[in-house]
Protein backbone atom coordinates (compact mmCIF):
# COMPACT_ATOMS: atom_id res chain seq x y z
CA UNK A 1 0.00 0.00 0.00
CA UNK A 2 1.21 3.42 -0.90
CA UNK A 3 1.70 5.66 2.08
CA UNK A 4 2.41 8.78 0.07
CA UNK A 5 -0.54 11.01 -0.72
CA UNK A 6 -1.40 14.36 -2.17
CA UNK A 7 -3.21 16.27 0.54
CA UNK A 8 -6.39 17.97 -0.65
CA UNK A 9 -7.28 20.60 1.96
CA UNK A 10 -10.55 21.90 0.56
CA UNK A 11 -11.84 25.32 1.58
CA UNK A 12 -13.29 25.01 5.09
CA UNK A 13 -10.05 23.84 6.71
CA UNK A 14 -7.76 26.69 5.59
CA UNK A 15 -10.66 29.10 6.15
CA UNK A 16 -11.28 28.29 9.80
CA UNK A 17 -10.30 24.82 11.06
CA UNK A 18 -6.50 24.98 11.42
CA UNK A 19 -6.63 22.69 14.47
CA UNK A 20 -7.73 19.78 12.28
CA UNK A 21 -4.96 20.30 9.75
CA UNK A 22 -2.24 20.80 12.37
CA UNK A 23 -3.17 17.67 14.35
CA UNK A 24 -3.72 15.53 11.25
CA UNK A 25 -0.37 16.42 9.72
CA UNK A 26 1.50 15.64 12.97
CA UNK A 27 -0.23 12.31 13.52
CA UNK A 28 0.13 11.17 9.90
CA UNK A 29 3.83 12.11 9.81
CA UNK A 30 4.51 10.08 12.94
CA UNK A 31 2.64 7.10 11.48
CA UNK A 32 4.72 7.21 8.32
CA UNK A 33 2.17 8.66 5.92
CA UNK A 34 3.95 11.13 3.68
CA UNK A 35 1.95 14.12 2.48
CA UNK A 36 2.72 16.06 -0.68
CA UNK A 37 1.05 19.44 -1.26
CA UNK A 38 -1.31 19.88 -4.21
CA UNK A 39 0.47 22.17 -6.70
CA UNK A 40 -2.84 23.96 -7.17
CA UNK A 41 -6.45 23.25 -6.26
CA UNK A 42 -9.91 24.74 -6.15
CA UNK A 43 -13.15 24.11 -4.26
CA UNK A 44 -14.06 20.41 -4.61
CA UNK A 45 -17.40 21.43 -6.11
CA UNK A 46 -19.78 20.09 -3.48
CA UNK A 47 -21.08 23.46 -2.22
CA UNK A 48 -22.43 24.25 -5.69
CA UNK A 49 -23.97 20.84 -6.44
CA UNK A 50 -27.37 22.01 -5.13
CA UNK A 51 -27.45 24.84 -7.65
CA UNK A 52 -25.50 23.40 -10.57
CA UNK A 53 -24.54 19.76 -10.91
CA UNK A 54 -22.50 20.61 -14.00
CA UNK A 55 -20.44 23.17 -12.07
CA UNK A 56 -19.75 20.57 -9.39
CA UNK A 57 -18.61 18.06 -12.01
CA UNK A 58 -16.26 20.56 -13.65
CA UNK A 59 -14.73 21.78 -10.39
CA UNK A 60 -14.18 18.24 -9.12
CA UNK A 61 -12.79 17.01 -12.46
CA UNK A 62 -10.41 19.96 -12.51
CA UNK A 63 -9.00 18.92 -9.14
CA UNK A 64 -8.73 15.29 -10.22
CA UNK A 65 -6.98 16.29 -13.45
CA UNK A 66 -4.48 18.39 -11.46
CA UNK A 67 -3.83 15.47 -9.13
CA UNK A 68 -3.42 13.06 -12.05
CA UNK A 69 -0.48 15.12 -13.30
CA UNK A 70 1.40 14.22 -10.11
CA UNK A 71 0.57 10.52 -10.29
CA UNK A 72 -0.31 10.43 -6.58
CA UNK A 73 -3.56 9.43 -4.92
CA UNK A 74 -5.47 12.01 -2.87
CA UNK A 75 -5.98 12.15 0.88
CA UNK A 76 -8.61 14.53 2.23
CA UNK A 77 -9.50 15.56 5.76
CA UNK A 78 -13.00 16.57 4.72
CA UNK A 79 -15.52 13.80 3.98
CA UNK A 80 -17.42 16.21 1.72
CA UNK A 81 -14.36 16.66 -0.51
CA UNK A 82 -13.60 12.92 -0.39
CA UNK A 83 -17.18 11.96 -1.28
CA UNK A 84 -17.31 14.45 -4.14
CA UNK A 85 -13.98 13.49 -5.68
CA UNK A 86 -14.82 9.77 -5.36
CA UNK A 87 -18.26 10.24 -6.85
CA UNK A 88 -17.11 12.34 -9.80
CA UNK A 89 -14.20 10.00 -10.50
CA UNK A 90 -16.68 7.10 -10.67
CA UNK A 91 -19.29 8.92 -12.75
CA UNK A 92 -16.81 10.23 -15.30
CA UNK A 93 -14.98 6.92 -15.64
CA UNK A 94 -18.25 5.14 -16.37
CA UNK A 95 -19.89 7.73 -18.63
CA UNK A 96 -17.78 8.44 -21.70
CA UNK A 97 -20.10 11.06 -23.19
CA UNK A 98 -20.18 13.03 -19.94
CA UNK A 99 -16.42 12.68 -19.56
CA UNK A 100 -15.90 14.17 -23.00
CA UNK A 101 -18.30 17.01 -22.21
CA UNK A 102 -16.51 17.86 -18.96
CA UNK A 103 -13.08 17.51 -20.55
CA UNK A 104 -14.27 20.00 -23.16
CA UNK A 105 -14.54 22.54 -20.35
CA UNK A 106 -11.03 21.76 -19.07
CA UNK A 107 -9.31 21.71 -22.44
CA UNK A 108 -8.70 25.45 -22.70
CA UNK A 109 -6.66 25.25 -19.48
CA UNK A 110 -4.64 22.34 -20.80
CA UNK A 111 -6.20 19.87 -18.38
CA UNK A 112 -7.76 16.48 -18.96
CA UNK A 113 -9.55 14.09 -16.61
CA UNK A 114 -8.42 10.51 -17.19
CA UNK A 115 -9.59 8.76 -14.03
CA UNK A 116 -6.21 7.53 -12.84
CA UNK A 117 -6.21 8.65 -9.19
CA UNK A 118 -8.18 7.47 -6.19
CA UNK A 119 -9.31 9.56 -3.23
CA UNK A 120 -9.33 8.46 0.39
CA UNK A 121 -10.48 10.21 3.54
CA UNK A 122 -8.01 10.23 6.46
CA UNK A 123 -10.14 7.69 8.36
CA UNK A 124 -9.83 5.33 5.41
CA UNK A 125 -6.06 5.85 5.19
CA UNK A 126 -5.62 5.26 8.91
CA UNK A 127 -7.69 2.08 8.75
CA UNK A 128 -6.61 0.60 5.41
CA UNK A 129 -3.04 1.83 4.94
CA UNK A 130 -1.69 2.33 8.44
CA UNK A 131 -3.90 -0.26 10.13
CA UNK A 132 -5.23 -0.58 13.66
CA UNK A 133 -2.29 -2.68 14.83
CA UNK A 134 0.28 -0.06 13.89
CA UNK A 135 -1.84 2.66 15.49
CA UNK A 136 -2.08 0.66 18.72
CA UNK A 137 1.70 0.20 18.69
CA UNK A 138 2.12 3.98 18.37
CA UNK A 139 -0.03 4.62 21.46
CA UNK A 140 2.28 5.41 24.38
CA UNK A 141 -0.30 7.13 26.54
CA UNK A 142 -3.54 5.10 26.44
CA UNK A 143 -6.59 7.27 27.17
CA UNK A 144 -8.26 4.58 29.27
CA UNK A 145 -9.99 7.03 31.64
CA UNK A 146 -11.81 8.77 28.81
CA UNK A 147 -15.33 8.01 27.56
CA UNK A 148 -16.17 9.69 24.28
CA UNK A 149 -18.86 9.70 21.59
CA UNK A 150 -18.17 9.59 17.86
CA UNK A 151 -19.81 11.65 15.16
CA UNK A 152 -19.01 10.16 11.76
CA UNK A 153 -21.13 12.61 9.78
CA UNK A 154 -22.96 11.90 6.54
CA UNK A 155 -20.57 12.04 3.65
CA UNK A 156 -18.06 9.42 4.74
CA UNK A 157 -20.97 6.93 4.68
CA UNK A 158 -23.73 8.02 2.33
CA UNK A 159 -24.88 7.47 -0.32
CA UNK A 160 -23.94 3.86 0.28
CA UNK A 161 -23.74 2.92 -3.43
CA UNK A 162 -21.22 5.65 -4.22
CA UNK A 163 -19.06 5.68 -1.09
CA UNK A 164 -18.94 1.96 -0.42
CA UNK A 165 -17.17 2.39 2.91
CA UNK A 166 -18.14 0.90 6.27
CA UNK A 167 -21.78 0.08 7.09
CA UNK A 168 -23.77 3.34 6.88
CA UNK A 169 -26.48 2.19 9.30
CA UNK A 170 -24.05 1.01 11.98
CA UNK A 171 -20.55 2.26 11.20
CA UNK A 172 -17.63 0.72 13.08
CA UNK A 173 -14.51 2.25 11.54
CA UNK A 174 -14.21 5.42 13.60
CA UNK A 175 -15.25 3.51 16.72
CA UNK A 176 -12.35 1.11 16.28
CA UNK A 177 -9.95 3.98 15.64
CA UNK A 178 -11.15 5.65 18.85
CA UNK A 179 -10.80 2.44 20.83
CA UNK A 180 -7.25 2.05 19.51
CA UNK A 181 -6.36 5.12 21.61
CA UNK A 182 -7.51 3.31 24.75
CA UNK A 183 -10.60 5.52 25.15
CA UNK A 184 -14.08 4.03 25.39
CA UNK A 185 -16.42 4.88 22.52
CA UNK A 186 -20.01 5.07 23.77
CA UNK A 187 -23.10 4.12 21.76
CA UNK A 188 -25.90 6.69 21.67
CA UNK A 189 -29.19 7.47 19.93
CA UNK A 190 -29.05 8.49 16.24
CA UNK A 191 -25.28 8.30 15.92
CA UNK A 192 -25.28 8.64 12.15
CA UNK A 193 -27.58 11.64 12.07
CA UNK A 194 -26.63 14.88 10.32
CA UNK A 195 -24.95 17.66 12.38
CA UNK A 196 -27.07 20.34 10.74
CA UNK A 197 -24.23 22.28 9.07
CA UNK A 198 -25.62 22.09 5.51
CA UNK A 199 -28.74 23.96 6.65
CA UNK A 200 -26.76 26.93 8.00
CA UNK A 201 -27.56 29.97 5.89
CA UNK A 202 -30.81 28.43 4.65
CA UNK A 203 -32.46 27.79 8.02
CA UNK A 204 -30.23 28.39 11.03
CA UNK A 205 -33.11 27.36 13.26
CA UNK A 206 -33.27 23.85 11.80
CA UNK A 207 -29.46 23.58 11.81
CA UNK A 208 -29.10 24.51 15.47
CA UNK A 209 -31.93 22.19 16.50
CA UNK A 210 -30.21 19.29 14.76
CA UNK A 211 -26.97 20.03 16.60
CA UNK A 212 -28.84 20.41 19.88
CA UNK A 213 -30.43 16.99 19.36
CA UNK A 214 -26.97 15.51 18.92
CA UNK A 215 -25.64 17.19 22.08
CA UNK A 216 -28.65 15.93 24.06
CA UNK A 217 -28.01 12.36 22.94
CA UNK A 218 -24.28 12.60 23.62
CA UNK A 219 -24.90 14.14 27.04
CA UNK A 220 -27.38 11.39 27.90
CA UNK A 221 -24.59 8.79 27.79
CA UNK A 222 -22.23 11.11 29.70
CA UNK A 223 -19.61 11.36 27.00
CA UNK A 224 -16.59 13.46 28.04
CA UNK A 225 -15.89 14.54 24.46
CA UNK A 226 -17.41 14.39 21.00
CA UNK A 227 -15.05 13.20 18.26
CA UNK A 228 -15.45 14.47 14.69
CA UNK A 229 -13.69 13.80 11.40
CA UNK A 230 -15.21 16.59 9.31
CA UNK A 231 -14.46 20.34 9.36
CA UNK A 232 -18.13 21.25 8.89
CA UNK A 233 -19.41 18.97 11.65
CA UNK A 234 -16.67 20.36 13.87
CA UNK A 235 -17.60 23.98 13.18
CA UNK A 236 -21.25 23.10 13.74
CA UNK A 237 -20.58 21.64 17.17
CA UNK A 238 -17.52 23.44 18.53
CA UNK A 239 -18.38 26.92 17.28
CA UNK A 240 -22.07 26.70 18.13
CA UNK A 241 -22.08 24.77 21.41
CA UNK A 242 -22.17 27.86 23.64
CA UNK A 243 -24.78 29.47 21.40
CA UNK A 244 -26.99 26.38 21.56
CA UNK A 245 -26.60 26.23 25.34
CA UNK A 246 -27.75 29.85 25.64
CA UNK A 247 -30.51 29.57 23.07
CA UNK A 248 -32.17 26.46 24.50
CA UNK A 249 -31.15 26.89 28.17
CA UNK A 250 -29.08 23.72 28.10
CA UNK A 251 -25.75 22.86 29.73
CA UNK A 252 -23.36 20.59 27.87
CA UNK A 253 -19.72 21.55 28.36
CA UNK A 254 -18.71 18.80 25.95
CA UNK A 255 -15.36 19.41 24.19
CA UNK A 256 -15.40 18.69 20.45
CA UNK A 257 -12.13 17.16 19.22
CA UNK A 258 -10.90 16.18 15.79
CA UNK A 259 -9.99 12.49 15.80
CA UNK A 260 -6.28 13.26 15.10
CA UNK A 261 -6.24 15.38 18.28
CA UNK A 262 -7.46 12.41 20.31
CA UNK A 263 -5.01 10.06 18.63
CA UNK A 264 -2.19 12.58 19.03
CA UNK A 265 -2.75 12.72 22.81
CA UNK A 266 -2.55 8.93 22.93
CA UNK A 267 0.65 9.05 20.87
CA UNK A 268 2.23 11.29 23.50
CA UNK A 269 1.82 14.70 21.87
CA UNK A 270 0.82 17.67 24.00
CA UNK A 271 -2.47 19.60 23.72
CA UNK A 272 -0.38 22.60 22.61
CA UNK A 273 1.23 20.64 19.77
CA UNK A 274 -2.21 19.45 18.71
CA UNK A 275 -3.65 22.99 18.58
CA UNK A 276 -6.13 22.55 21.43
CA UNK A 277 -5.86 26.32 21.91
CA UNK A 278 -7.73 26.76 18.60
CA UNK A 279 -10.84 25.03 19.99
CA UNK A 280 -13.75 27.08 21.32
CA UNK A 281 -15.14 24.72 23.95
CA UNK A 282 -13.06 24.44 27.12
CA UNK A 283 -11.07 21.19 27.18
CA UNK A 284 -9.45 21.63 30.60
CA UNK A 285 -11.86 19.34 32.47
CA UNK A 286 -11.34 16.56 29.94
CA UNK A 287 -7.57 16.99 30.12
CA UNK A 288 -7.76 16.82 33.92
CA UNK A 289 -9.53 13.46 33.64
CA UNK A 290 -6.61 12.25 31.57
CA UNK A 291 -4.02 13.59 33.97
CA UNK A 292 -5.64 11.53 36.71
CA UNK A 293 -4.24 8.38 35.12
CA UNK A 294 -0.90 9.52 33.87
Amino acid at each position, binding site marked *: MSSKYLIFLGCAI*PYRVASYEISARKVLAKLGVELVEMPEFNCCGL*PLDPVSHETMLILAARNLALAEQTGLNILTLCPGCAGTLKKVNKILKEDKALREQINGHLKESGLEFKGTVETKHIVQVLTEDVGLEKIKEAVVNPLTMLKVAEHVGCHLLRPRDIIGFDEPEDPQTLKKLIEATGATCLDYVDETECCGAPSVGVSDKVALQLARDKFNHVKAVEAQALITICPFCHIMFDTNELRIERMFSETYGIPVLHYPQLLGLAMGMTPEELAFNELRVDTSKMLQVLKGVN
Partner: protein
Amino acid sequence: MTETSTSRKPIKASEIDPKFKYELSRMPGGEKLLRCFQCGTCTSDCPVARFSDAYRPRRIIRMAQLGLKERVLNSETLWLCAACFTCTDRCPQGVEVASVIRVLRNLAAEKGIVPQVFKDQAACILDSGYAYKIPELRIKKRVTLGLPPLPTSNPESICKALKGVKFIETTGKEGEKSEQ
Protein backbone atom coordinates in the same frame (compact mmCIF):
# COMPACT_ATOMS: atom_id res chain seq x y z
CA MET B 1 -40.07 31.97 -2.46
CA THR B 2 -42.66 31.25 0.15
CA GLU B 3 -43.04 28.48 2.63
CA THR B 4 -46.80 28.43 2.08
CA SER B 5 -46.32 27.65 -1.59
CA THR B 6 -46.19 23.94 -0.78
CA SER B 7 -49.22 24.00 1.51
CA ARG B 8 -52.34 22.11 0.63
CA LYS B 9 -54.08 24.51 -1.66
CA PRO B 10 -56.33 23.09 -4.38
CA ILE B 11 -54.57 21.97 -7.54
CA LYS B 12 -55.82 23.52 -10.75
CA ALA B 13 -55.46 21.54 -13.95
CA SER B 14 -54.01 24.66 -15.55
CA GLU B 15 -50.96 24.59 -13.27
CA ILE B 16 -50.06 21.01 -14.14
CA ASP B 17 -47.22 20.38 -16.56
CA PRO B 18 -47.87 16.77 -17.61
CA LYS B 19 -44.41 16.36 -19.11
CA PHE B 20 -42.48 17.65 -16.10
CA LYS B 21 -41.93 14.21 -14.58
CA TYR B 22 -40.47 12.94 -17.86
CA GLU B 23 -38.23 15.99 -18.13
CA LEU B 24 -36.93 15.20 -14.62
CA SER B 25 -36.55 11.50 -15.41
CA ARG B 26 -34.16 12.34 -18.22
CA MET B 27 -31.86 14.35 -15.98
CA PRO B 28 -28.95 12.72 -14.09
CA GLY B 29 -30.26 12.00 -10.60
CA GLY B 30 -33.94 12.16 -11.57
CA GLU B 31 -34.09 8.86 -13.46
CA LYS B 32 -36.00 6.95 -10.80
CA LEU B 33 -38.60 9.58 -9.89
CA LEU B 34 -41.48 7.52 -11.31
CA ARG B 35 -40.71 4.58 -9.03
CA CYS B 36 -41.91 6.48 -5.94
CA PHE B 37 -45.14 5.02 -4.51
CA GLN B 38 -45.36 7.53 -1.67
CA CYS B 39 -44.57 5.19 1.22
CA GLY B 40 -43.11 8.05 3.26
CA THR B 41 -39.87 6.40 4.38
CA CYS B 42 -37.98 9.52 3.23
CA THR B 43 -40.04 11.91 5.33
CA SER B 44 -40.17 9.72 8.41
CA ASP B 45 -36.38 9.24 8.40
CA CYS B 46 -35.51 12.83 7.44
CA PRO B 47 -33.68 14.69 10.23
CA VAL B 48 -34.68 18.06 8.79
CA ALA B 49 -38.38 17.15 8.65
CA ARG B 50 -38.22 16.50 12.38
CA PHE B 51 -37.48 20.17 13.05
CA SER B 52 -39.22 21.86 10.15
CA ASP B 53 -42.99 22.19 9.88
CA ALA B 54 -42.79 22.63 6.13
CA TYR B 55 -40.07 20.34 4.75
CA ARG B 56 -41.47 17.02 3.61
CA PRO B 57 -39.43 15.16 0.97
CA ARG B 58 -42.34 12.86 0.12
CA ARG B 59 -44.48 15.89 -0.71
CA ILE B 60 -41.76 17.38 -2.91
CA ILE B 61 -41.52 14.10 -4.85
CA ARG B 62 -45.32 13.95 -5.22
CA MET B 63 -45.47 17.52 -6.50
CA ALA B 64 -42.80 16.66 -9.04
CA GLN B 65 -44.71 13.55 -10.15
CA LEU B 66 -47.95 15.50 -10.45
CA GLY B 67 -46.28 18.14 -12.61
CA LEU B 68 -46.69 21.10 -10.24
CA LYS B 69 -43.58 22.59 -11.75
CA GLU B 70 -43.93 26.25 -10.81
CA ARG B 71 -45.14 25.45 -7.32
CA VAL B 72 -42.30 23.08 -6.51
CA LEU B 73 -39.57 25.20 -8.10
CA ASN B 74 -40.73 28.29 -6.22
CA SER B 75 -41.00 26.50 -2.92
CA GLU B 76 -38.45 27.60 -0.36
CA THR B 77 -38.71 24.25 1.41
CA LEU B 78 -36.76 22.78 -1.51
CA TRP B 79 -33.67 24.42 -0.03
CA LEU B 80 -33.95 22.84 3.39
CA CYS B 81 -32.58 19.44 2.35
CA ALA B 82 -29.25 18.92 4.15
CA ALA B 83 -28.08 16.34 1.57
CA CYS B 84 -27.42 13.77 4.30
CA PHE B 85 -28.59 11.05 1.88
CA THR B 86 -30.50 9.11 4.54
CA CYS B 87 -33.58 9.10 2.26
CA THR B 88 -31.51 7.91 -0.69
CA ASP B 89 -30.03 5.02 1.31
CA ARG B 90 -33.32 3.91 2.84
CA CYS B 91 -35.80 4.38 -0.04
CA PRO B 92 -37.26 0.89 -0.70
CA GLN B 93 -37.85 1.87 -4.32
CA GLY B 94 -34.33 3.21 -4.94
CA VAL B 95 -35.63 6.63 -5.94
CA GLU B 96 -32.47 8.58 -4.89
CA VAL B 97 -34.69 11.17 -3.26
CA ALA B 98 -31.85 13.58 -2.43
CA SER B 99 -30.72 13.53 -6.06
CA VAL B 100 -34.25 14.28 -7.33
CA ILE B 101 -34.33 17.23 -4.94
CA ARG B 102 -30.95 18.34 -6.25
CA VAL B 103 -32.28 18.19 -9.83
CA LEU B 104 -35.25 20.36 -8.79
CA ARG B 105 -32.93 22.83 -7.07
CA ASN B 106 -30.73 23.01 -10.16
CA LEU B 107 -33.79 23.88 -12.27
CA ALA B 108 -34.92 26.51 -9.74
CA ALA B 109 -31.40 27.98 -9.63
CA GLU B 110 -31.31 28.32 -13.42
CA LYS B 111 -34.41 30.50 -13.08
CA GLY B 112 -32.67 32.60 -10.45
CA ILE B 113 -34.66 31.14 -7.55
CA VAL B 114 -31.82 30.45 -5.14
CA PRO B 115 -30.87 31.42 -1.58
CA GLN B 116 -28.21 34.12 -1.33
CA VAL B 117 -25.70 31.81 0.36
CA PHE B 118 -25.23 29.83 -2.89
CA LYS B 119 -24.81 32.97 -4.99
CA ASP B 120 -22.12 34.15 -2.60
CA GLN B 121 -20.25 30.85 -2.73
CA ALA B 122 -20.38 30.81 -6.53
CA ALA B 123 -19.03 34.37 -6.67
CA CYS B 124 -16.28 33.43 -4.25
CA ILE B 125 -15.23 30.40 -6.30
CA LEU B 126 -15.12 32.45 -9.51
CA ASP B 127 -13.09 35.14 -7.74
CA SER B 128 -10.70 33.08 -5.63
CA GLY B 129 -11.13 29.41 -6.49
CA TYR B 130 -12.25 28.64 -2.95
CA ALA B 131 -15.80 28.47 -1.56
CA TYR B 132 -14.93 31.04 1.10
CA LYS B 133 -12.91 34.19 0.95
CA ILE B 134 -9.94 33.07 3.02
CA PRO B 135 -8.56 36.20 4.73
CA GLU B 136 -5.00 37.16 3.82
CA LEU B 137 -4.13 37.20 7.53
CA ARG B 138 -5.13 33.58 7.90
CA ILE B 139 -3.03 32.55 4.90
CA LYS B 140 -0.03 34.33 6.46
CA LYS B 141 -0.75 32.84 9.89
CA ARG B 142 -0.15 29.37 8.46
CA VAL B 143 3.59 30.01 8.69
CA THR B 144 3.46 30.78 12.42
CA LEU B 145 1.29 27.70 12.95
CA GLY B 146 3.95 25.59 11.25
CA LEU B 147 1.77 24.78 8.23
CA PRO B 148 3.00 24.76 4.63
CA PRO B 149 1.82 27.62 2.40
CA LEU B 150 -1.72 27.28 1.02
CA PRO B 151 -1.52 25.95 -2.55
CA THR B 152 -2.50 28.57 -5.07
CA SER B 153 -5.71 28.46 -7.02
CA ASN B 154 -6.17 29.67 -10.55
CA PRO B 155 -9.38 31.72 -10.81
CA GLU B 156 -8.70 32.65 -14.42
CA SER B 157 -8.51 29.01 -15.46
CA ILE B 158 -11.59 28.17 -13.33
CA CYS B 159 -13.62 30.90 -15.04
CA LYS B 160 -12.56 29.51 -18.41
CA ALA B 161 -13.62 26.01 -17.38
CA LEU B 162 -17.02 27.20 -16.19
CA LYS B 163 -17.73 29.20 -19.33
CA GLY B 164 -21.06 28.25 -20.86
CA VAL B 165 -22.50 26.72 -17.68
CA LYS B 166 -26.02 28.12 -17.45
CA PHE B 167 -26.09 28.79 -13.71
CA ILE B 168 -22.69 30.49 -13.77
CA GLU B 169 -23.60 32.67 -16.74
CA THR B 170 -26.75 33.93 -15.03
CA THR B 171 -27.21 33.69 -11.27
CA GLY B 172 -23.68 32.72 -10.34
CA LYS B 173 -22.31 36.18 -10.93
CA GLU B 174 -24.80 37.95 -8.66
CA GLY B 175 -23.22 36.95 -5.35
CA GLU B 176 -21.24 39.02 -2.91
CA LYS B 177 -17.61 38.13 -2.36
CA SER B 178 -17.68 39.50 1.15
CA GLU B 179 -15.93 37.69 3.97
CA GLN B 180 -18.54 35.63 5.74
